[in-house]
């Protein structure tokens, strides 16, 4: 399995970048008054233009307090609605296209105009990205990592919103999907991809691991080699933020598939700005950046 991925990683990296490029393009086109359905459709159309024919799941778009899944009781509520975008509103675009047999699953958070709260949430996600990678490398049981992420969220003052996903997963496995001419979808999920997940679940059940990284006993095992789409999702009083990207886990190591993603770039830009502006520390923004750095440093300290 590991061998199969070794030379195929480029394909996953390509489709992940493609998906993020689509999300960024659609995000740039969002205007006040557009609905979630409009945004989801725009993603779908663009993906099709780029040659995407199959999906792990169809694009989701969440606006306003739906980014924090406020009042979500049944899975149907994840699907795009007629909620209209307003200035200052946060949004999340989430899609999982399959391209040339490789699956990506991405989540892009943003807001229409400045939203300092969501920016803060995004900045705080950095610590989660570092924590997850560090603990996977230590080969801690996935369930324990899940609980550590939970604790970090509580300390930050946020609610865990990935708990609202099916099975409460913070991540799930993604894999190659065979190219079929016809791949029907069930409730927005591609059958080919679901088939892969189901077969993983079956193998995992026999071998004692699960393709779904959940808070439950089924995830009480060390990280299983393969590609994991990791999606920590923070919520805070009606505002949510997440990222989703592929984590490559091998028998001995782990690394993020790609560091050239919008949220990662945003963090490194913030670092550069902070370095540039150390000469004149003024204004709240700079303070926020410095805070982030201290947070990150603290995280690193905890690791050591």
């Amino acid at each position, binding site marked *: 399995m590991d061998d199969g991925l070794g030379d195929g990683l480029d394909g996953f990296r390509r489709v992940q970048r493609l998906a993020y490029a689509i999300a960024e393009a659609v995000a740039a086109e969002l205007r006040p008054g557009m609905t979630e359905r409009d945004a989801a459709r725009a993603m779908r159309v663009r993906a099709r233009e780029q040659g995407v024919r199959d999906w792990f799941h169809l694009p989701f778009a969440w606006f*306003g*307090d739906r980014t924090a899944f*406020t009042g979500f009781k049944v899975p149907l509520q994840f699907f795009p609605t007629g909620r209209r975008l*307003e*200035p*200052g*509103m946060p949004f999340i675009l989430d899609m999982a296209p399959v391209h040339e047999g490789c699956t990506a699953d991405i989540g892009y958070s943003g807001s229409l105009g400045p*939203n*300092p*709260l969501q920016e*803060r949430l995004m900045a705080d996600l950095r610590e989660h990205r570092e924590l997850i990678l560090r603990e996977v490398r230590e080969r801690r049981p996935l369930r324990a990592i899940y609980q550590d992420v939970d604790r970090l969220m*509580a*300390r*930050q*003052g946020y609610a865990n919103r990935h708990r609202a996903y099916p099975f409460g997963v913070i991540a799930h496995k993604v894999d190659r999907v065979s190219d079929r001419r016809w791949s029907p979808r069930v409730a927005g999920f591609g059958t080919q991809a679901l088939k892969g997940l189901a077969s993983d679940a079956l193998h995992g059940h026999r071998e004692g691991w699960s393709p779904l990284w959940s808070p439950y006993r089924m995830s009480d095992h060390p990280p299983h080699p393969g590609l994991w789409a990791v999606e920590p999702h923070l919520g*805070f*009083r*009606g*505002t949510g933020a997440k990222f989703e990207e592929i984590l490559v886990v091998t028998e001995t190591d782990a690394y993020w598939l790609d560091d050239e993603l919008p949220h990662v770039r945003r963090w490194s830009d913030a670092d550069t700005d902070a370095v540039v502006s150390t000469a004149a520390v003024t204004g709240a923004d700079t303070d926020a950046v410095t*805070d982030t750095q201290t947070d990150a440093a603290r995280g690193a300290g905890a690791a050591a």
Partner: protein
Amino acid sequence: MSGTEEQVRERFVTGGGGVRLCVAEYGDAELPTVLLLHGYPDSKEVWSDVAALLADRYHVVLYDVRGHGRSAAPEPLKGGFTLEKLTEDFLAVADAVSPDRPVHLVGHDWGSVQGWEFATVGRTEGRIASFTSISGPCLDHFGHWIRRRVRRPTPRRAAQVLGQGAKSWYVYALHTPVLPELAWRGVLGRQWPKLLARVEKLPADSYPTASLPEDAAHGAWLYRDNVRQRLGSPRPDAYAHVPVQLITPTGDAFLSERLYDDLERWVPQLTRRTLPAKHWVPRSRPNQLARWIADFVTAHEFGGGPGGTAAAGTAAAAVPGVRGKAGDGARQRFGGQLVLVTGAASGIGRATAFAFAEAGARVIAVDRDTEGAARTAELARLIGAPDAWPETVDVSDAEAMEKLAARTADVHGVPDVVVNNAGIGLAGAFLDTTPEDWKQVLDVNLWGVIHGCRLFGRQMVERGQGGHIVNTASAAAFQPSRALPAYSTSKAAVLMLSECLRAELAPHGIGVSAICPGIVNTPITGSARFAGVSEEEQDRRRARSARLYGLRNYPPEKVARAILHTVQRNTAVVPVTPEARGARLLSRLSPGALRAFARVDPPL
């Protein structure tokens, strides 16, 4: 204050019909002008406290309405007090004190009735930048309000009209000829200050001034010249051409809160505030008024744009959780107030700090966990608190609490709401509980609350402008249990302390409430101690109780909402979760059942 009074400049301005008006000015005339207009039976000195508080930032102007204080009375009195003539007076004063720039108008009682006239007639357009109305409706709006209710009466509307009709008894009395003048110049004029001090609980000081009997006698013509005419045929076009801030005292004996229900029809840019106080708020709540006036003036000073209301609107859009009626009520009540919460780094305290922040309050987040308190303050600013500060204090440390109280009063002023929430958990049989365990739990759970009440209660009483203290007790305060003897004892003490303090502070207009949450999913389980068990067993029980609390999963946000409600309604004891309500009910109906339940050893 006497220092500021020395800087008061008085002069006379000729108003409509050649009436000489006495005008007092505070502060630098280059600054934006705030014009404070008094009511009936008052003179401009009713505003002294508020004016002194505003004088460092604004050019504050007061004047005696014609026939009041040191202003001259018109000749003849009859027909000399119509709103048209009062408008001429206002324009004359405004032109004299701020010829180039519009003024920010604030009116109380009849000052507000006049203010509504100025804010809705065409003549004054461009001369007013904003209007803050306190306890005085627009007579035209009032006329329409009555008409709507009389023409289409429903039981509720009829009750509203009758209720206001009863509150307006003094208006009818003032319409009788000669008698009111006789009363004011006689016994009523002499007894008025004492009457006010007793009924309205106003500070007994140099106010009212010696001119009161004459002011009150003249002022009767305000009613006779305007009320019947305006209520009988209200203007159909009384739309406000300026942004209006409406401050409604909820304990006003003369005006129903319902009077302002239709106000959005008349005022495109309306900001509402509610204040738990009686009628004479310029004297009983000067600090709160000064803050709201200053905030409103600042928001509308530059360009007269939507300013403050727009800012509030965006905050609400960004935080959809607080939309709706409950959120509006909380924002009207807590906007700009100073709220101090202990134990604010996690759980109920943090959620409470956030709920107050969403309502627009300034928040002080106190906790012994520095990082957590800082985090709470930072997020509070992001969700709508105009400002928020963290404080690292252990509530059980008397000295540290005294320093906190002193620092708070110095830097931010006296808190309007204090939530003594910090607490720790301790479980285990009484015979296993060591004296150290007892000391620890009582130090935090009881002494922390005592220090908070003692220090901030004193500050509130000395300020004399009301306030509210909320103490977090627990359902364990009335539900005995063999598993939680120390914790329950500490919380029962908090409950009784709150009840006693409530009785003591009620005459000062300070409310005290005990909140009894019940089983709420907070980190208290993670830090709780279990007496008489080994370390591994400690951890196992912590994990187990955290899991049980997690399964119950009652969110601290709901407790926070209950706390805001409690303050708004000044409730004495508030059980929150259903099990807490049930236990409270049983403790009164059938304490035997609770005692039987107390014998159950919880499976941990």
